[in-house]
């Protein structure tokens, strides 16, 4: 990938939660690159570390018990306008490590350069403040607009996300909006400061299916209109596939596979991804194929398995899978997977495309 085209690079991010029961390894050695002007999807089951990764990027992990133990979150320094904090040399030249910023400097990044859309719009808006105040405050605190200008822009943004009578609705409170409308407000709010990156954490999960479709449609529309990169987190592969250029599959706090949407569907490089595909209904299925669940449940992150984290549930697991954790290896153009089946001496598996 062109080095100038990188917006954010997560490198070796490790986040643990220190609980009374022990240390939960929520995110372990996470590595991920977000190109500029792109949509990256992150899929995984509950507890796979998708949200914790993003909350770590935002540095909003509740601490205690959470702690970011290591790694870097490099972000385009030119966009941040922090020339003095930029790396002078090396592979991350011109980038700023968000994890090294002071709390005050980080505050200037949140909302302004990285904005977030949360899962449940019913609880993500403050019930006692007007939509107007909640819409305008980020623009005002980031010094992008005066109260009056922010109000105008907020009205425009509400109109853009399809709220009827935006001028009037600015004075309303969240309870006067429906769930879908509130999510539209959340989206408008996230986009109001023109952030370089928008993180949408399960933006449609808590909405009913018709509203889900509308929100996804809106996000696709806005993606074309506005110049933000989007990270869309979901447990639903179909939602991610419909929007993302690149998909990252997470499991037990790590990346198992990373590929563009086409490659992921055509030649999945990990048995877990294959399992995910089979468990999602497809419109183009010829017969009435039965959905195949992935047997078992995700590992206990208090005491994860020693080898590959997916080995206990993997149909093709070999001896080595239970003893040693595979590395993330490149298996194609922009396609990486963490599986021993790619090793030259591994047995062939039907439906699985080996490297080379």
């Amino acid at each position, binding site marked *: 990938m062109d080095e100038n085209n990188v917006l954010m690079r997560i490198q070796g991010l490790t986040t643990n939660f220190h609980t009374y029961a022990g240390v939960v390894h929520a995110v372990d050695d996470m590595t991920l690159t977000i190109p500029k002007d792109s949509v990256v999807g992150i899929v995984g089951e509950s507890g796979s570390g998708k949200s914790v990764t993003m909350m770590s990027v935002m540095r909003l992990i509740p601490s205690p018990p959470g702690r970011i133990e290591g790694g870097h979150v490099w972000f385009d320094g030119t966009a941040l306008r922090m020339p003095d904090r930029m790396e002078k040399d090396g592979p991350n030249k011109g980038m700023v490590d968000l994890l090294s910023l002071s709390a005050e400097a980080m505050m200037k990044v949140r909302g302004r350069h990285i904005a977030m859309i949360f899962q449940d719009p019913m609880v993500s808006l*403050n019930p006692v403040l007007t939509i107007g105040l909640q819409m305008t405050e980020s623009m005002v605190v980031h010094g992008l607009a005066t109260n009056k200008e922010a109000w105008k822009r907020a009205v425009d943004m509400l109109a853009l996300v399809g709220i009827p009578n935006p001028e009037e609705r600015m004075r309303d409170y969240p309870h006067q909006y429906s769930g879908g409308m509130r999510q539209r407000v959340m989206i408008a709010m996230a986009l109001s400061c023109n952030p370089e990156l928008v993180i949408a954490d399960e933006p449609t999960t808590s909405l009913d299916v018709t509203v889900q479709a509308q929100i996804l449609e809106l996000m696709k529309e806005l993606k074309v209109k506005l110049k933000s990169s989007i990270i869309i987190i979901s447990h639903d592969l179909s939602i991610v596939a419909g929007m993302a250029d690149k998909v990252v599959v997470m499991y037990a706090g790590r990346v198992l596979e990373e590929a563009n949407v086409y490659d992921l569907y055509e030649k999945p490089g990990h048995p877990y991804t294959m399992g995910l595909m089979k468990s999602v209904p497809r419109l183009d299925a010829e017969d009435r194929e039965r959905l195949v669940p992935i047997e078992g449940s995700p590992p206990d992150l208090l005491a994860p398995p020693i080898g590959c984290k997916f080995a206990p549930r993997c149909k093709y697991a070999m001896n080595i899978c239970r003893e040693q954790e595979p590395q993330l290896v490149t298996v194609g153009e922009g396609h990486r997977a963490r599986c021993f089946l790619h090793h030259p001496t591994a047995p062939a598996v039907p439906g699985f495309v080996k490297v080379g």
Partner: protein
Amino acid sequence: MLKFILQRVLSMILVVLIVASATFFMMRLLPSGPFSREKKLPAQIIKNLEARYHLDDPLWKQYVDYMKNLLRGDLGPSFKYTDRTVNNIINDGFPVSAALGVVAVILAVGIGIPLGIWGALKQNGWQDNLVMFVALLGVSVPNFIMAVLLMFIFALGLHLVPAAGWGSIKQIILPAFTLAGYPIAFLARLVRSSMLEVLRQEYITTARAKGLSERLVIFRHALRNILIPVVTVLGPLIAAVFTGSFVVEKIFAIPGLGRYYVTSINDRDYTTILGVTIFYSALLVFLNFMVDLTYAWLDPRIRYVERKVS
């Protein structure tokens, strides 16, 4: 809104009348009467006294007469303080109790709420432990101990303030702190737990994700949400503090309403018991009404206005 207020005012009057009636009849169940003394008075004198205060009328007539007077705002003469009416007693005592009460409430709110917020922000840190320890002391130490302790330290020991009496600003300090002790502790605990609850809410994460400073997150996004439970307890708390505390007023020799209330029960001073009870309940009902109005102001979800449905 006007309709709501009107309805509430009517129901408030009803509540006070019910309290008045219940107290009127229950009081008469007390053994002996207002003129029983250790040394028995001659029967004729008691008879004369009862005639003078219409206590020899049938009970229903006494009740009807009292209620008629009550509606005119006349609470009747005191049986104990022969030259004074109950209205006089309340007029004299209440401003004193209320003045003390206002200071105590300001102290309670001004100290209790910030302490609670501070504790919550430093959850499980030494500051939090300190706040919770002080709050535990505050709710468990009875106010007569607190009063004596404060007197001992600040009046006798440090000579900063007079030990007792009424009339100067310096004399308010000790009784006000004594009176505020429990509310401070109670509010601190309440605010701390509500704050912790609110800080866990998603909308706080949203606010932080927008890049707001911690100060804005706390004061704009969290504070208003924690004030709802605080206001709920504040109504009755203010009523209790305003009407005076018998113990505190006794210890600090303050001529407030509280001590009349207790002595009137011992003396079976029917009119004073009734009058002060009615006054207290009216105040309580009124403050609860204010609490409800404040709710509406704090929380848009419970506004009592009919709004257009969109």
